[in-house]
């Protein structure tokens, strides 16, 4: 899907203050503020510390995956198997629970399984030179299929209370552990992508993998690390989600791969690779959290919310394009 005719250089090459104000992130901030104001008018229950804290549970787990997925998409790859990785992590945590594992072991199992699944994707993509969209469609069925084989139509329950804390606990008054973890991860990924050589290599690979290879970037190693990172973040998300729900079912997190990709794309990451920022992804995650929570307060069913998130995705992306077209027509 790398279409030459639609491909543009990233707009952010020059960095004047004007470019900063007119950036994608400021458009997203405006959208977020608009939705926030609309929410507070629409429901009297919205502006309240506890419900705002509840709101964060709507997006933190998916956004953790979106952080890593952003790097992957900037490098020109994609991972459709993240939701299935969550299912497999959660299932194997449940299995460990049946053998009497305690909280530290459960967390270790979840994170390790995520890492293994991610590296499996990475090996397939880099060793066999296959398009990642194809590989991860396969592993998507494979990972969730293994979860179905292990679980059947059963579900695992009875996680210890100390484990539940990861999904339900609060670090400081109303600030949940999930939110703090997301904040820490967002900062780590921000530094990784925008302040390190590794991040520069990710952008270089997304813009032109062949040129990156010839300028000394070990393209396949970077790709492999990115798949491992995505798997790792899926594993962490699996720990949080399982702890929050307190149960494991093979159908857990169904459809999350597309929601995480929606956050990444809405955040201004080019699906063709080579452009994007972590800040945008964080704001986009917040927007999606705001929309789903606000509509939830208005008793809008989940499936109808998807019309709004899908419409938002298309409208927000179409707006700058329409604006540019109108400007070109006038000139």
């Amino acid at each position: 899907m790398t279409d030459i005719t639609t491909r543009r250089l990233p707009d952010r090459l020059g960095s004047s203050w004007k470019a900063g104000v007119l950036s994608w992130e400021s458009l997203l901030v405006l959208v977020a503020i608009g939705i926030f104001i609309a929410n507070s008018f629409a429901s009297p229950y919205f502006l309240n510390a506890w419900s705002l804290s509840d709101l964060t549970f709507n997006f933190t787990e998916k956004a953790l995956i979106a952080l890593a997925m952003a790097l992957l998409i900037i490098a020109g790859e994609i991972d459709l198997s993240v939701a299935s990785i969550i299912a497999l992590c959660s299932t194997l945590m449940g299995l460990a629970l049946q053998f009497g594992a305690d909280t530290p072991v459960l967390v270790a199992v979840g994170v390790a399984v995520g890492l293994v699944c991610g590296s499996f994707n990475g090996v397939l993509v880099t060793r066999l030179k296959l398009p990642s969209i194809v590989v991860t469609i396969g592993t998507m069925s494979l990972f969730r299929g293994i979860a179905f084989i292990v679980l059947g139509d059963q579900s695992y329950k009875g996680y210890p209370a100390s484990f539940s804390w990861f999904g339900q606990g609060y670090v400081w008054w109303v600030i949940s552990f999930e939110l703090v973890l997301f904040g820490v991860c967002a900062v780590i990924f921000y530094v990784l992508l925008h302040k390190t050589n590794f991040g520069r290599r990710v952008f270089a690979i997304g813009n032109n993998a062949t040129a990156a290879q010839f300028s000394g970037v070990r393209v396949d190693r970077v790709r492999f690390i990115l798949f491992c990172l995505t798997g790792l973040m899926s594993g962490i998300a699996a720990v949080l989600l399982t702890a929050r729900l307190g149960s494991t079912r093979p159908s857990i997190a169904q459809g999350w791969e597309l929601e995480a990709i929606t956050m990444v794309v809405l955040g201004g990451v080019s699906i063709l690779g080579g452009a994007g920022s972590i800040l945008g992804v964080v704001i986009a995650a917040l927007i999606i959290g705001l929309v789903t929570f606000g509509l939830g307060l208005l008793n809008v069913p989940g499936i109808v919310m998807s019309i709004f998130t899908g419409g938002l995705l298309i409208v927000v992306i179409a707006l700058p394009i329409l604006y540019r077209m109108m400007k070109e027509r006038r000139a």
Partner: protein
Amino acid sequence: MKSLFKHREIWLGLAIVAVILAVTLRFPRFAEPSFLLTVFNDTSILMMLALGQMAVILTRCIDLSMASNLALSGMIVAMANAAFPFIPVPLLILGCVVVGAAMGAFNGLLVWKLNIPAIVVTLGTLTIFRGMVFVISGGAWVNAAQMSPDFIQLQRSVFLGLPVLSWFAIVVAALVYVLMTRTPLGRAFYAIGVNPTAAVYTGIDVGKTKFYAFVLAGAISGLAGYLWISRYVIASVEVASGYELNIIAACVIGGVSIAGGIGTVGGALLGALFLGVVNNALPVIGVSPFWQMAISGAAILLAVVLNARGERSKGRVILRGA
């Protein structure tokens, strides 16, 4: 003879025969023509959808919204049938195709006029169309009792020894085959997939060609909407949920290159048939249904790996060279 085996369709055909033979060892009735026809009939809808998806993938786009399109046009036609049972079924089918094509046109217009990447557009419409199903139905189901007998029976009735559902697949396959191999539009699909810049210089309107590919995929999804609803006699929000990736998997197994420009009607049909045979074979030989997903996932990976080897030997670089 040697050149014959260079075609991946031959290898895929052999793989399907091998699966059938292996299953026959455990369950002799599997190879009987009547049983094979059942498998074919079961796979008809997937085959049609795979052909529509192939047209889109050939132009370097992807349509993730096909399954949602199927659910929405299916729900519309089921509700129309429940409310006005006197409307003749052929008219309903036509309506389904038009509604599906309109949704495809919506995708196509966004890709053509606004130049938004197809994966982004259809990711959005995937959720929009599915949500619309809920909006128009209010979350309610349309069940067998509400549908008219004609509506349910049409695709079950047997014509020349085959159910009408199978005939739909055969006719659609024939039409798409003619479109792909005998018309300027079909040639344009391949041309812009292989090299969009060169296609522009030969006078092909790249955006418009993509638009037509989306309309085709939409029309087929609409038709599949009617067929799915009348086959499983239930219309609900959940219809074909997550099926979009099965459709893409069928294309990928059939050797349609996700980077565009490569793929044949025969390949896409065989890819769908391969998934259909595997899925039909598992319950027959007593494999628990819980294994089904993992086995088809492994089959997809295996087919993809074999395909990639075939492509590389031709020296063709796809998607990336590094």
